C-alpha cells in the first residue's frame, strides 16, 4: 500500500466515522483514555494562557473541532483547523457559532511528512500561526489490538 493509499484510507475512514464520531468515539467516551488526553490538553492550554495575545493557532487533525471550538476559540485565538476528512470538517463547520466564525479558517489537508517537499496542511499554513497543535490518535488500533480485542 502506497503512502497515497494510506492517506486515502485515512480520509475514507474518518469520513465514514464523522457522523457518529462525537457520540461514539471511544477515546472521548472512555474515562481512562480521556484522562491521558486531558493531561495533554492541560499542557497545551497552560502554554496558550500565558502566551502573548493575540494568538493564532494551527490545529492539525482538528477533526470535529473538540479542541478548536471548546478550547482555542473559547480562549480568543484565531484558529486554522486542518483535517484530512471533509466529513469531519463539515461537522466542525456545523458546530461553530456565528460569533466565532470570523476567527476560524477551515482547511482540508493532511500533515503527511513522508513525501519531502510536498506542500501539506502544515507547511502551507505554518507561517500564519504562532502555535501549532497536533493531538491525534491513530484510530485503527494497532499492534496490541488483535490481542486485547478478543471479544469484539
Amino acid at each position, binding site marked *: 500500500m502506497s503512502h497515497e493509499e494510506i492517506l486515502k484510507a485515512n480520509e475514507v475512514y474518518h469520513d465514514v466515522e464523522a457522523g457518529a464520531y462525537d457520540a461514539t468515539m471511544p477515546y472521548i467516551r*472512555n474515562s481512562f483514555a480521556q484522562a491521558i488526553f486531558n493531561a495533554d490538553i492541560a499542557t497545551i492550554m497552560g502554554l496558550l494562557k500565558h502566551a502573548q495575545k493575540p494568538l493564532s493557532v494551527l490545529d492539525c487533525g482538528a477533526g470535529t473541532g473538540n479542541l478548536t471550538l471548546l478550547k482555542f476559540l473559547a480562549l480568543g485565538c484565531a484558529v486554522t483547523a486542518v483535517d484530512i476528512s471533509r466529513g469531519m470538517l463539515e461537522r466542525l463547520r456545523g458546530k461553530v457559532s456565528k460569533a466565532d466564525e470570523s476567527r476560524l479558517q477551515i482547511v482540508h489537508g493532511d500533515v503527511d511528512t513522508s513525501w519531502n517537499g510536498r506542500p501539506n496542511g502544515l507547511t502551507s499554513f505554518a507561517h500564519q500561526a504562532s502555535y501549532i497543535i497536533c493531538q491525534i490518535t491513530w484510530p485503527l488500533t494497532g499492534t496490541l489490538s488483535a490481542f486485547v480485542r478478543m471479544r469484539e
Partner: protein
Amino acid sequence: MYEFVQREYYRPDVLGRGLLRRMGLLSTPARSQAQVAVDQGLVERPQLGISAEVLTGLLSENHFDNIITHWRSIKRFWLTYTLDKWFVRSNNALFMVAHRSGQAPIPA
C-alpha cells in the same frame, strides 16, 4: 482487574483466539466499513506517514523554536495501556505543540 474480567481474559478460548489473531493466523473482525480498506500491516506502524523527526524539522524551518513532538501509546484501559507502553511499544497517538517566539517567515 476490571479489564481482565470485562474482556474475559481468564477464558482459555478467548485467550487462544487473541493469540492466533496476534500471530496473524486468525482475521481480526472489522470495526467499520472503512477499516476493511486498510492494510493491517501498516496499522502496526502508524508513524509511517507522519514522522515526528520530520515534523520537528519542518517546524524548525518555519522558525518555530519551542517544539515538543512524539508518538506514544493511548489505550482505553490501564492494563492495555501499560502493556502497550512498556512492552509492545506500539505508539498510536501523536502529540505535538510548537511555539514560534520570533517573526514568522514570509511565505514563498
